[in-house]
């Protein structure tokens, strides 16, 4: 009998949306999920109910298209978070910090739709016990939520939207001398205890310091799911066979949004509710500084939302004391030309090669 321990998830970056990664030794990298989710797959079917065949019920059903997606949560390993950011925040640059040999600074921003609305895609593999070993190509990111709470490891929820195609009973190997899915090593965890939060209203910066408790920063993409099914491309589950059902030929994004939620200990004259009432323009910087990579260069995550407006700020009880929980959204900043910026300093040379 297989238990939840016998599950595995992996991925490999595709060169473009259409080209699936082939199963081969070391072709995929395993990622560690804290959940036990599996792919949600559903054929899009139609039937002949109501046709003038004289029957009160449908007489047959056929498949027109396929749909598949999956959600996962990964722990906040610096070397793994960058992969989620790359899939979802398509504007990516790499810099070398001064004095660095192995450390690189990776900057992620929302993908410029003027260049392209098609994000990077991965081929995703999954196994659960002895009877489930599947592959899902053309999987694009539909957003992520980065979280930190109390003493815990940072976590990142993310979703992968497939084209609908699922390969069943694959030859993907997960163990052995040369498996198809290779485990990552040397991962460095970032903790909520390493987080610093500074928010300014343009006049008075508030460094939350000891008042900081938890955060959630959510970047979401609304995908053009229906438009991705392109009948003229004639791409089907079985190549050349329209009766096998259509799969997506593209999966572009429409809207890009940022929302956040913070919990901080209450203090006298807390400014958060005033900021809500007066709709002040806020500038948010959240950093998580981890252990040293080399010299004085640490693993470091910095999330910047240069223009934010609060939506709510409410007293709540957490750990038996009063806290403020405040939330809001990010807006595009003309001055810095960005909605959101995530900077990740870690010992990965290039996240596009790290999958």
């Amino acid at each position, binding site marked *: 009998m297989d238990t939840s321990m016998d599950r595995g998830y992996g991925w490999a970056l595709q060169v473009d949306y259409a080209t699936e990664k082939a199963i081969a030794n070391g072709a995929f990298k395993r990622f560690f999920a804290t959940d036990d989710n599996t792919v949600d797959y559903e054929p899009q079917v139609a039937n002949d109910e109501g046709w003038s065949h004289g029957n009160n019920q449908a007489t047959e059903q056929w498949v027109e298209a396929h749909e598949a997606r999956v959600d996962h949560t990964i722990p906040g390993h610096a070397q793994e978070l960058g992969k989620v950011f790359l899939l979802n925040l398509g504007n990516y640059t790499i810099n070398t910090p001064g004095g660095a040999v192995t450390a690189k600074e990776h900057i992620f921003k929302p993908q410029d739709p003027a260049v392209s609305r*098609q994000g990077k895609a991965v081929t995703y593999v999954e196994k659960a016990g002895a009877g489930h070993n599947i592959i899902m190509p053309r999987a694009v990111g539909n957003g992520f939520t980065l979280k930190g709470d109390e003493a815990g490891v940072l976590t990142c929820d993310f979703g992968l939207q497939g084209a609908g195609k699922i390969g069943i009973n694959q030859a993907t190997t997960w163990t052995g001398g040369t498996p198809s899915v290779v485990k990552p090593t040397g991962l460095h965890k970032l903790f909520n205890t390493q987080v610093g939060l500074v928010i300014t209203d343009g006049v008075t910066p508030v460094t939350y310091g000891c008042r900081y408790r938890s955060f959630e920063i959510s970047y979401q993409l609304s995908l053009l799911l229906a438009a991705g099914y392109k009948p003229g491309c004639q791409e089907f589950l079985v190549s050349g066979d329209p009766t096998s059902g259509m799969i997506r030929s593209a999966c572009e994004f429409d809207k890009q949004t940022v929302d956040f939620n913070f919990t901080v200990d209450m203090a006298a004259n807390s400014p958060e509710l005033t900021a809500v009432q007066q709709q002040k323009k806020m500038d948010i910087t959240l950093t998580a500084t981890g252990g040293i990579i080399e010299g004085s260069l640490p693993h470091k995550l910095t999330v910047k939302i240069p223009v934010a407006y609060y939506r709510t700020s409410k007293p709540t009880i957490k750990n038996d004391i009063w806290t403020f929980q405040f939330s809001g959204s990010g807006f595009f900043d003309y001055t810095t030309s960005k909605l959101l910026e995530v900077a990740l300093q870690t010992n990965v040379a290039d996240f596009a090669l790290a999958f």
Partner: protein
Amino acid sequence: MKIKLNVPSKPGADKVSVGNFEAELKPNSIITVENRRFADHLIENFGLTETGKKSSGDDGDGDGGENQFGYPAGFPGRDALEAAKIPFETVKGLTLEQLVAVKGIGEKTAESILAFEPEETDGEETADDNGGEE
């Protein structure tokens, strides 16, 4: 469409990607990208300049793909000819004197136009444009 870009001495990044378009920015090098919008992104955000793109247009080699005016890739003086709204089919029949009369076309460029043959890939570094045209 091949668009050649000059990378400045301090481009501000080692590598840039937008979706499936990517380019390594080695200082003081020339890279080639195949997507106009990605090229514009590099120009606007990282200070790259388009090779041969000068305001006078006198020595521009008009690199780029075909467009509504029908000019083939690499056609010399293309920018000035497009600005004058002269289609490719018309240019083929112009004399040297008529070409020089077009604003932005000098004698050297006019001679290049008359001698033009479609160019081959010249082996310069090509950025990875897996995104393709969209």
